[in-house]
């Protein structure tokens, strides 16, 4: 693999992702409206007008709007990752995935490039959301917006790698819809994205335990901590480890010798 070739391919994949994203206005719009609706409506229904008790990294009492913003940023990454993985299943059914996979580059590299491109393309919207959230008085330190960048990328990679893995094992679109219902929503709800762990513990110790072990919670907390210029090494390690595991599994899933295609013949 020549370096220049690899870079050109990455640039090309990134460019294509950007063009595709920009031309899907509806998807863009709903991607930004979704977290705002949560912030404006759901957060208002969660009575926290007297302040939530102090949970790190917050050093003082915060309103629920402040608490939920990092979780909603992670939600955006999650939905983006799943939409992107849905696009991969679609691409595969429609065939354009083959084009990518017949490029004269190692397959793991092509998958990684596609994953990275998808994550990068998703980030501007997350930042837009974080900026709009300032309207709700969610004002993390200015440097926090910079510090959260690597956290968003790493979390995006983890969720994207999970999506990639799902796309490598679900052969049909219908399966994918099932995945959306049985994976995304539980992942999102049984996490610290919407409720602090002590609130989940009030609802039930099992739920709190699931949320504590849910890698999505780690992504949420990584984003939350870095946004407020704190660093939570445990979350970072969990997210990193999950990314590596999901990605390697996805590479196996797409492996020409071992993957599902070679066993079932995904090409019909």
């Amino acid at each position: 693999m020549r370096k220049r070739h690899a870079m050109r391919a990455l640039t090309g994949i990134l460019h294509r992702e950007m063009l595709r994203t920009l031309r899907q206005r509806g998807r863009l719009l709903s991607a930004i409206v979704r977290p705002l609706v949560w912030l404006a409506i759901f957060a208002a229904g969660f009575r926290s007008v007297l302040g939530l008790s102090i949970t790190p990294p917050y050093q003082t009492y915060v309103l629920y709007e402040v608490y939920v913003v990092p979780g909603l940023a992670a939600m955006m990454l999650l939905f983006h990752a799943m939409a992107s993985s849905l696009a991969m299943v679609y691409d595969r059914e429609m065939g354009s995935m083959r084009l990518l996979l017949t490029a004269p580059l190692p397959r793991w590299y092509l998958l990684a490039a596609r994953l990275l491109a998808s994550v990068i393309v998703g980030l501007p919207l997350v930042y837009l959301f974080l900026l709009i959230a300032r309207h709700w008085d969610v004002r993390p330190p200015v440097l926090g917006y910079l510090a959260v960048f690597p956290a968003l990328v790493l979390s995006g990679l983890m969720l994207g790698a999970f999506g990639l893995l799902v796309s490598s094992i679900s052969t049909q679109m219908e399966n994918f819809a099932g995945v959306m219902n049985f994976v995304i929503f539980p992942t999102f709800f049984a996490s610290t994205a919407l409720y602090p762990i002590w609130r989940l513990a009030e609802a039930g110790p099992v739920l709190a335990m699931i949320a504590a072990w849910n890698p999505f919670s780690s992504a949420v907390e990584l984003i939350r901590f870095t946004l407020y210029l704190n660093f939570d090494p445990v979350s970072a390690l969990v997210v990193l480890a999950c990314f590596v595991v999901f990605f390697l599994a996805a590479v196996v899933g797409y492996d020409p010798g071992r993957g599902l295609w070679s066993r079932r013949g995904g090409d019909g």
Partner: protein
Amino acid sequence: MKALSLEGLGHSFGERRVLNSVSFSVAEGGMCILLGRNGAGKTTLFSLVTGLYHARSGQIDVFGHSMRTDPAAALAQMGVVFQQQTLDLDLTAAENLRYHASLHGLAAGTSETRLHEELERLEVLDRCDEPVRSLSGGQRRRVEIARALMHRPRILLLDEPTTGLDVPGRRAIEQHVRALCRERGIAVVWATHFLEEVSADDDLVVLHKGRLRWAGGAGRVATDLAVASVADAFDVLTDAV
């Protein structure tokens, strides 16, 4: 050296055997028609040759590069037009070609020059900045062929490229590809189930139920089987009579 050489190729999906010890080769600059009915295993063969997945058994070499041990070198020599349409409908023809060029590591300048050249040769240059969605089926096919030629492959593989097109459209595609083969010396593997796309000078490979039934000059098939025409020969080879 052979442009493409298959040696004892076999594959199965679970218990279902789809290819059984298929061997044939395509000469440099040769035109090879891969003829078979639906379900003959043509598409699986394409998937294996393009490295989408590995064959259970056998060997594939593209200009001497093994598909299994050096797929990148093999794929670099290969231009592919899949049976399924693989263009990005929301992107323009030019954008689709640029994407493909980047995957093959072409510099931006080279990519632009070739993009014009190839689209012009295939007579779709005037539509190059329109979203592919607005192009006709025939035009899309031609854009796909142009795309497959961007990285100057020495062998072009087309899987049922004329399916779904009207007769003039089919004729046009066929003429383009034959011209490429003639003028540029590109080897062609043309998978089809249309008998009229076979010409006497072509190499012919007939696949049926995963087995190779014939490999040799198309002009000889009728004589060798002592029938009146290629069509009759095909019927004989595919147990239709």
